[in-house]
């Protein structure tokens, strides 16, 4: 089973993503900010990570940068799901090491399809 880490400071978004991903057959673990995400990513290995950008404490960019420094996560797909839609934000996301940048609101199908595509299961 594919394990996915969902990092978002909105409990609603975490719930939403967890639900659709569980329905799609993923095992989901959630974190409320980048720091908690890093702790959980260190404690256990995930196959793919979904993260928000604007979060209190450690934001999504910082989380991705730090995660990429961990050899366990240098090739793990990381998807940003953010409210930011500007090209600059996208560039920052990809520069930090994200593999995909999705803008909220996102529909379930798109998220799942994107994840499967990145995991090479499509």
């Amino acid at each position: 089973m594919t394990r996915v880490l969902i990092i978002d400071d909105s409990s609603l978004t975490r719930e939403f993503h967890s639900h659709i991903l569980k329905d799609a057959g993923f095992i989901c673990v959630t974190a409320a900010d980048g720091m908690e995400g890093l702790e959980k990513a260190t404690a256990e290995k995930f196959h793919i990570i979904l993260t928000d950008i604007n979060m209190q404490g450690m934001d999504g960019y910082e989380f991705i940068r730090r995660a990429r420094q961990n050899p366990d996560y240098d090739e793990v797909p990381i998807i940003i799901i953010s409210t930011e839609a500007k090209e600059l934000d996208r560039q920052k996301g990809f520069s930090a090491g994200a593999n995909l940048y999705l803008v909220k609101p996102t529909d379930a199908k798109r998220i799942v399809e994107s994840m499967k595509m990145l995991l090479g299961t499509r």
Partner: protein
Amino acid sequence: MRWPSNTKLGEKAGRLQQAIRAFLNVCCRLGPPVWPFAKSGKSAAPELKAGDWSHRLEEEKRFLLSLVRGIETEFLASGDGLMRLAQQLNGIQKECQSLTDLTLGQTQDAAVQFAFQLLKKSEDLVLASYEQYDHVFATFNELQQRLAQLSKQHDELMRVLLPLNFITMSFRIEASRHPMEVQQAFFTLADNVNRTVNEVRSTLERQFDELAASERIARSLMEQISASIQQHRKEVTATLESSRNHLRALSEALTSSGAGVTDLSQLNQTVTRHIGGIVMAQQCQDITRQRIEHVGEAMDEMRIHLGDARPATFASNSENHQFIFRAAQIQLHQVQNVFDQLNRAADSLKSGIQSLRTEAGAAAEAAVKVGGTTLDAKVASQCQAGIGQILGIVKQAVQKIADIIAAFEPLQASFVDCTSKATALARDVRHAGLNAQVFAIHAPDGATLEVLAGRMRVISEEAIQQVGQMGAALSHTTEMVNNLRQRLEDFKLLGEAEQEILTDESALSQKKLSDLEVAIPVLIRRVTQQQGTFAQSVEEVLANVQFPVTVAEASSRSIGFFRNLVAWGSEGGSGLVVESPASQKIDLLQSKYTMESERLAHAAALEPVLAPAGATVDGSSIEMFDDFTSPAPTIAGTPGEIVPPIERSEGQPRLADLPKRETAPPVPTLPPAEKNPAASEELGENVELF
């Protein structure tokens, strides 16, 4: 108009002015029901001091954050409800799939189609038995013709043998002229010939009588079979038609039910889309939460400025005033944006939920349509009965064939017996003729006897020939009957085997139809129950959706609050100097906004001040979610429209004494429902009067 204060009249006028001002203030505070020119929610605001505003900012911030948390809590709850709906839909989908499989798919093929096939097989078997009957009738007709022909041949044989009596008599007369021993030998020979001929006659008569009797029995059986076959044909046709109609009705009922299931399935897809739409709308909470948090931070900043300003000196601290005015203006924009977005989300939510309710109703109708099969499914029992009847007919058909075979048994035996006996007798006659000829040759003066013996031999040869022809005809007829018998026995075996298979398959078909009859109502009950639960859950989710009302109320309150704050701040903060410290602090606020749309709203709020006169804000440049895009609020109007009477503190200049602004600071327009330009203008005039 102003009265000199150092005169009595001036003192009276001053007191009157104060009384009127106090009255107006009271009226304004009481609002439109008492004072039509007052604006609701604005009357008290300008009277607040800096400390009050600081307190109210804190209160408003708490309110906004609590609103966001409340929305989040409600969305989480309604999200749970929607997920429950999705799960219920999933369950309904599965049941619908089972029903579809049962009514339109493999299971139906294995039940109804199987029953159809069984009927077809039964019909084929019955039709095959009819073919056998037809063949029997044809054979029997031919047999009757051959029997008639044999009868003629028999008559011919009798005619051929008839002269033998005269010849034996002549033989006796002629032999009496010979010595006793010769005479005796010829007498014996003549007796033998007579006896043989008589035996031939009687035997053939008997055989032909037996043949005729067998033929009569067979014909009687044929007539019975023919009559019963006619009856069978009618029964079989009616039963097959009835069974087919039942199956067709069952099939149509299942198809109709399947159509209901398809409707339900499509409705479920629609409902899933609506739920998806609602979930999409709910995602606005994330962005609005961030915005409100940023607004809260800005409010903290404003409180710092308000807190620093002592009431006595605040009005003269134009930097603080400028900051509060501009910051309030920007927050007003932000809050308006937030509430615009929330209102659009509320609209989407309301429309999505309304659609859910509509679809739940439609789904209930579709479920009723599916449930219509409950009664129709009883057709399965009738089909089973029909198949049972057909099997009975098949059994009878096979039995009739067996009866025909039994009837032909003695007839065939008669033919064989008759043929062998006729042949043997003909040989006896020839044998007697030969003996007579031999005796005549050896007898002295036996020329006459020899002639008679020769004639006897000729007759016996003719008789043999005649018997031979009869034997051939009988053999042919025997062969024909044999073939028919063989054919009927083959069919009987086939029919029995088919009947056995059909009986087994019929039992299977009955079980399948029974299962179908039992399974469909159960599934339909489950679907309708789940559909009912779903409709109930939709209503529960609907009942718990308070968000649109909450947002409408909060929107009115918070926008009103910031408008009042803008109006209050406009007293001293409208003349923003671009390079002032307040302006720089305002710009610093922008850096705290993490979202581009906020930064744009911030810039838009400042643009009318910083841009040349007449420049307008391009609302389309403000970035929003794709699905919730709307133009940014327009900036128009003047603060003069919403300036109510102000209770001045000691040392503060009166409103009327304040210098007129050269450029009016921008204040967002009121929503149409709140806007009352006439009232505000009149109030303004009244205030200006004093």
